[in-house]
């Protein structure tokens, strides 16, 4: 077993066990979506029109809220120092940790999407489109959010400060995610153009995120 796969396996195990808190994100996602009809009214036509936007906002906030666990608990028990000092490049270790976090906290959001789509009166095509765009877009949220998590752990600050720093960076993902789902549901644009840009954003953040997070950890931890 290579060090990276061991790291991924360990992180997923910790996240799914008692005290891991990966599934709290799904619960939060559900709660946010349930709150929406109380704010806009129980109008099914309106809800199905706003549905993709609501689901995307909920997923964005849910993935943001689980992010501060990415480095914080490892920092508290000292294993982050071991990871930093190990022979594996820190960038790769960061990417592995983010991947594990996405598998544990991001994938359940996508699995929950069909159920929530039902609540928002979305039909099969719309639900499928939102789930597909979330599948392509949430890695970008995790990998850019990892920068904020790394900053938060080096500064011993989390919560609101991290949200304020990370949310502006996630605007492009939100724009293209919602646009691609709307394109699939109502048109008139093709689904392909915004969807491929969304994939491109995920790939770009896959490169930028680990490097920035590793730089932040290298310079910040002492």
């Amino acid at each position, binding site marked *: 077993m290579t060090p990276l796969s061991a790291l991924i396996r360990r992180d997923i195990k910790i996240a799914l066990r008692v005290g891991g808190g990966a599934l709290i994100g799904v619960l939060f996602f559900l709660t946010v979506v349930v709150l929406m009809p109380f704010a806009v009214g129980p109008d099914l036509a309106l809800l199905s029109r706003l549905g993709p936007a609501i689901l995307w906002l909920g997923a964005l906030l849910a993935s943001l809220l689980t992010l501060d666990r990415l480095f914080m608990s490892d920092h508290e028990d000292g294993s982050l120092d071991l990871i930093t000092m190990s022979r594996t490049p820190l960038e790769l270790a960061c990417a592995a940790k983010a991947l594990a976090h996405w598998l544990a906290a991001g994938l359940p959001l996508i699995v929950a999407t069909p159920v929530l789509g039902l609540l928002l009166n979305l039909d099969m095509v719309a639900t499928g489109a939102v789930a597909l765009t979330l599948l392509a877009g949430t890695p970008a949220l995790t990998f850019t959010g990892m920068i904020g998590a790394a900053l938060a752990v080096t*500064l011993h600050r989390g919560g609101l400060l991290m949200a304020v720093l990370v949310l502006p*960076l996630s605007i492009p993902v939100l724009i293209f995610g919602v*646009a691609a789902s709307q394109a699939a549901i109502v048109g008139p644009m093709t689904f392909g153009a915004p969807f491929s840009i969304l994939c491109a954003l995920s790939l770009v953040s896959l490169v930028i995120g680990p490097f920035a997070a590793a730089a932040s950890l290298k310079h910040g931890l002492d």
Partner: protein
Amino acid sequence: MSLIDLANPTRFLALSARVLPWLAAATAILFAIGLYLSALAPDDYQQGATVKIMFIHVPNAWLSMFVWGVMSIASLGTLVWRHPLADVAAKAAAPIGAAFTFLALLTGSLWGRPMWGTYWEWDARLTSVLILFLMYLGLMALWRAVEDPSRAARAAAVLTLVGALNLPIIKFSVDWWNTLHQPASVMRMGGSTLDKSFLIPLLVMAVAFTLLFVTLHLAAMRNEILRRRVRSLQMMQASRVAFSGDVSTGSRQENASTGAA
């Protein structure tokens, strides 16, 4: 004198003290000329006198991006060369950049009221400048969140560079989003080439505002260096007081224990 000589804060303070009055005077003179030329500039046939807002608005908008560029270079200085003044420069630039961005938004919305009939339009440019403003505020919040300046400096440097990479992406996606939502409903200044009677005052004002930034930035850097000196002096004094206090209480306890024995 190279950049590395300026790394000595004392030398930087001495040099900037000599340069600052000249810079301030040049800024004032250029502003006088620029404002005079702007006042002389003819009214636009379509926009009337409101076109003169442009002479303030455009330099502010240009500086809002320029300052982020300055901060990015300073951040590279912090992370790569560990230049002692780089993080001072980055920290001092952030509030000034935020102020220029805010002024660009404010003058833009004042111009939009008579032109578009609304103070705020979710136009692509306005929206991306607003996001830039939010990022400036986030960066300032980051600087304020941590007491130790060198610790905050490295985190802020990472964030500034990530922002510099992301700002073009955000700009592009907001442009794309805007064309999707409201096709070409907004009247644009661009397209037509500017007449000389507008271009010359605009250029003078742009140079004047840039000099204003340099002046303010140098002054803010001086303030930051002095503030750090005051802080370290206070810390030294506090630690001296705490240390002497420790010793006295410790000896008192010792006396008490020996007395009891």
